[in-house]
């Protein structure tokens, strides 16, 4: 199957027209992430103006929590790191970071979630895992404030997420999971501490995620899923080991998971599509060098043209 770029753009356009569907409301906890996924999709498909800029910025700002400086998933909900990063990514993609009401307050929101053991919790209610460590680090990168937090114990914490099998768990000692390759490897790369992990062992575990169908799974003996074409492949890309898998077979698997009628990409061929698998399928194809897509940066999941500016702002050389 070919890349159905126009269909995917149509799919993105109809996303906010589904307010008559119960599913739209039951996923309000994903609204801010969904918007980042949708916007990133339009950037990857090289139609960055498809979504109305003012409308999206208005929504993001409606989710700003004045008392903490964080952002929520939807208007009226509570702030959380998961949504704060998506909000910052949207503002950065739209070249509108100056619309952020109070930069220092947002920096403080992230800083206060830093735990004594080096991890970050997602909000003041506790849960700590590598997702939030990554959220915090990329948020600080966008805020150009990485040097405001001492990350020494965070680096150790991330290092301890690597298991004997080479993969990475949600926390030190937890089972290796494909999604944590992006968070742990990406975070350490941003912090300039990739040498803390055993890269060859990591790349071996990550490349073993490729199944006979060509798709990547998240853990041994599980079914393949298009989203790992991002979580796992981005880790391999940061480690410069994308050619440790069969790129053509993975490309085919992602393309077969497209819905030829309404557009969008599913977790597996013939399944129902959603914006999460659409953006990460496209981002995976971009890492594989598929024509017709903007180049994506494996460290931050933003177009490389945008991340180049981000690194310049921070005076970082990550490539």
């Amino acid at each position, binding site marked *: 199957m070919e890349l159905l770029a126009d269909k995917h753009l149509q799919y993105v356009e109809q996303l906010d027209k589904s307010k008559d569907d119960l599913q739209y409301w039951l996923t309000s906890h994903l609204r801010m992430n969904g918007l980042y996924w949708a916007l990133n999709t339009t950037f990857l498909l090289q139609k960055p103006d498809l979504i109305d800029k003012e409308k999206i910025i208005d929504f993001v700002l409606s989710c700003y929590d004045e008392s903490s400086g964080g952002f929520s998933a939807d208007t009226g*909900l509570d702030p959380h790191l998961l949504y704060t990063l998506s909000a910052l990514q949207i503002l950065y993609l739209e070249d509108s970071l100056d619309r952020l009401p109070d930069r220092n307050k947002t920096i403080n929101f992230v800083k206060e979630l830093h735990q004594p053991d080096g991890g970050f919790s997602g909000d003041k209610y506790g849960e700590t895992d590598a997702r939030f460590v990554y959220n915090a680090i990329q948020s600080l990168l966008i805020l150009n404030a990485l040097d405001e937090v001492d990350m020494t114990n965070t680096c150790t914490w991330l290092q301890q997420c690597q298991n004997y*099998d080479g993969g990475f768990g949600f926390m030190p000692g937890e089972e290796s999971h494909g999604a944590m390759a992006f968070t742990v490897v990406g975070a350490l790369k941003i912090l300039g501490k990739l040498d803390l992990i055993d890269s060859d062992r990591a790349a071996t575990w990550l490349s073993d995620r490729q199944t006979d169908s060509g798709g990547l799974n998240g853990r041994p003996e599980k079914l393949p899923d298009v989203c790992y074409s991002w979580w796992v492949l981005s880790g391999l890309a940061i480690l410069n080991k994308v050619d*440790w898998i069969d790129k053509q077979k993975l490309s085919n698997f992602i393309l077969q998971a497209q819905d030829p009628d309404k557009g969008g990409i599913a977790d597996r061929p013939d399944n129902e599509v959603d914006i999460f698998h659409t953006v990460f399928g496209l981002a995976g194809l971009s890492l594989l060098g598929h024509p017709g897509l903007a180049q994506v940066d494996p460290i931050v999941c933003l177009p490389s043209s945008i991340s180049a500016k981000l690194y310049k702002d921070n005076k970082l050389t990550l490539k």
Partner: protein
Amino acid sequence: MHNVRRVKHTEEQKAQRRKREQHDIQKFQKLNAEVIKRDFSDLGRVLLLTTQMLKMCPEHYTAWNVRREAILKLEEQDQKVYIDQLKHELEFTASLLPQNPKIHWIWNHRRWTAIRLGGGMEHELKLVNLLLAKDPRNFHGWTYRRWVLRLQFNNNIPASEVEKELKFTTEKINQNFSNYSAWHHRVQQLKQLPLELRPQLSAELEYVSQAVFMDPNDQSAWLYYTWLLEGDLYTVSTEVLKEQLDMIEELYSEDRTAYAARALLQLKSLLNMERDQKLVDDLIEMDPMHKNRYRV
């Protein structure tokens, strides 16, 4: 969306569904508006509203937050009512988890409750056992299990408990040796056991060999086998490595699989033997997807 088959609906079917869902959408909007008001003048009402919201949408993380804030206000008012409410929270999350075993927010609320209730953790392990019986690979369940044990023993789990956990992994692996979550848990337990209580390397090698021989294409057991040989925990003598080399060569002669070939290459490397180019070539032929890795 995971694991949902694509079905084509006609316009008429879509219209019917929307009509059906209108009532629930209104209910959601009304509950959402009430919950985010954070009106704590009537705590019973807050608990009722958040119960309704979370039954409808267990991912409504703000409803969980509001609920916790209400429970903490109960604590200020009446200690007994507060404790009873915490006990109720265990029942509430236990009622939601079987249908939603992968929702982080529910597990998080259960952690919050368990920390506050303290005491014995038998009921927690019972719940985890139930959920792991349903889905033996649910990593939330395994993570919670390790967390509960650390909480119960204040990060200092006695060896007798670790031995129980080791037995638990044996049970799970015997049910299905392809359960990598159980192998992972086994590694974590072995690392915690004092040397004198640790099973012998030979016993572990024999145990995992059974799995490897039964299905030489299963990744789970091979990962454990590889870990044992690398000597991360056990000292592996040259003699043992040679025995293993003979054994895997025998397996490989009967059933040529990529994993067996990889194990042979690993064993030869650990024995400082020359790189077996023929084996590498065979491996590339069997598993061409990873050819660039094998060529390194």
